């Protein structure tokens, strides 16, 4: 497939990058990926990426956490070992519910937060000892890199990218096995 050749356009400023992305999108070129040293606000919208669904997963994880807390406290405090604490005998879940609210809250947050982070890592295909996909180490410092697939139009692309303020334009053979 031809798409093994890509252009790497490098920028040194996030505002320049943003306007470049808009120009490239206006010319109907497909941007494969952008590497930035920090999250650039609004970049996902400019690139036309689909909105994230991580919030929905977070809500579902929160519901799981809430359920776990309810079931767990019901087992521990009501079924398995009912105790009389401060004159409140643990024979009815509902009557003792206020005491369990902090646990419900904590487990909801705990599940939502941790599982959301794990989901994010898995979805981004990141795990320990993974080789970085980053094509240019400078993007971890102060450079921004835009990767565009080439379909026999490298001259056209190069002149377009030059106009958008790229400080460096490289044509690279993309090795698909690298990641």
């Amino acid at each position, binding site marked *: 497939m031809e798409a093994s050749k890509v252009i790497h356009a490098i920028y040194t400023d996030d505002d320049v990058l943003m306007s470049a992305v808009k120009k490239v999108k206006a010319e109907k070129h497909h941007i494969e990926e952008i590497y930035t040293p920090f999250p650039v606000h*609004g970049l996902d919208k400019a690139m036309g990426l689909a909105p994230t669904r991580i*919030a929905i997963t977070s*809500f579902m994880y929160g519901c799981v956490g809430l359920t776990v807390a309810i079931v767990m406290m019901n087992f521990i405090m009501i079924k398995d070992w009912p105790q009389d604490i*401060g*004159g*409140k005998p643990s024979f009815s879940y509902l009557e003792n519910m*206020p*005491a369990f*609210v*902090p646990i419900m809250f904590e487990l909801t947050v705990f599940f939502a937060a941790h599982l959301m982070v794990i989901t994010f890592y898995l979805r981004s295909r990141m795990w320990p000892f993974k080789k970085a996909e980053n094509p240019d180490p400078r993007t971890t410092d102060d450079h921004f890199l835009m990767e565009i697939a080439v379909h026999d139009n490298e001259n056209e692309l190069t002149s377009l990218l030059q106009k958008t303020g790229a400080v460096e334009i490289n044509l690279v053979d993309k090795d698909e096995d690298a990641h």
Partner: protein
Amino acid sequence: MEYKISNRLRIAAIIMMALGLIGVTSGFLSANSVKTVEDVKVLLAEEAHHGHGDAHAADHHGESHNEEGHHGASHDEAHGAHADEGHHMSHEEHVLHQIHNRPWAALYVGAFFFFMIALGVLAFYAIQYASQAGWSPVLFRVMEGITAYMLPGAIIVLLIAVASGTIGHYNIFVWMNPEVVEHDKLIQGKSGYLNMTWFIVRGIIFISGWALYRHFSRKFSIAQDSADDNKNFKKNFRISAAFLVFYIYTESMMAWDWVMSVDPHWFSTLFGWYVFASMFVSGITVIAMITIYLKSKGLLEFVNDSHIHDLAKFMFGISIFWTYLWFSQFMLIWYSNIPEEVTYFVTRIEHYKLPFFGMLALNFIFPLLLLMNSDYKRINWFVIMTGIIILCGHYLDVFNWIMPATVVDRWFIGMPEIGAILLFGGLFLLVVFTALGKAPLLAKGNPFMKESKHFHY
């Protein structure tokens, strides 16, 4: 960009006030038509006959002496300090007092609710200045419009409170009644703080402090419009910071004086914060609603969806903050189960099940689920609908503060309550929208205005 209150709105507000006045008056008249204990006996017999008051009457005979009610304060058996006094009063006498208290309490709840909105907005406004927020200056004139109601609203609340202890028969605050204090060691111990003179003096100090800030911040804000330097803005920054310090103390004290002291035996150390959360979230909700209303009239074109989004985020966040404080207060008292503390919630859960738990649903569950999704916070009609729910919830919150102490189980949201809402709601609309028409809707001299106009989330 100018706004003038339309005749339609003004007439609607005046009609609301007129209807409200009728409701309030009829509430007082019907309460006063029950004059003697004999009348009450007839009334209770009728209620029992209809089966309606059955549960009430039965409840009452058995339990009223354990509860904190109008005179619950005077025979809180947990203290045993003065258990005798209360027993001189028959059940019918209690009911008579409760019937007479209801129109006063209803009026007070309505007045406090609208006053609280204006004071909450004033605090929000001061925070924007003190933090030099960049997103909100496009909303400053809306906030200034709402805070115009703070002064009249606060004066009305204080006047009703004082009138209930002078013209009325101690219908809201039992500690104002010298006969009660005479037999009550606990109130005697607090009388250095809880007495009419100091109550009025403190009230005047609170109100004049808030009113001074509101007066000067508005003045500097308007002066900044035509200024060519930032002097007025800097002054506003300074007085806002100073006001917030003053506010954080006086708001708490106001909450003790004007709300918590209706149950003079009971106290909660975080009550001031709890009242603050309630006024803050209602205030922010009203800012969002009035902004959306003005936008729908084609005004405020510089307010974009991101501003609404931010207001809705505050509505969401402060609703949760309110719940956090409410629950913190509730759980500690519920768990420790000390009779003189827990009586507060016992009364509410026994006689106020619907408003008490309904308020939790309206103030927590609804805003939590409705405003959780980020996209919904930008849909204007959605914010309005959620705002109505939040306002209803916080009206009930005020209702639950005042009513159990004054009318115990003889509560209902009827003529006197709705009348008070209409009366003060109408006045609120009239004052706020007239004030909105007095200055351009864009505080154009604010140094953060450009940032605010371009605010984008």
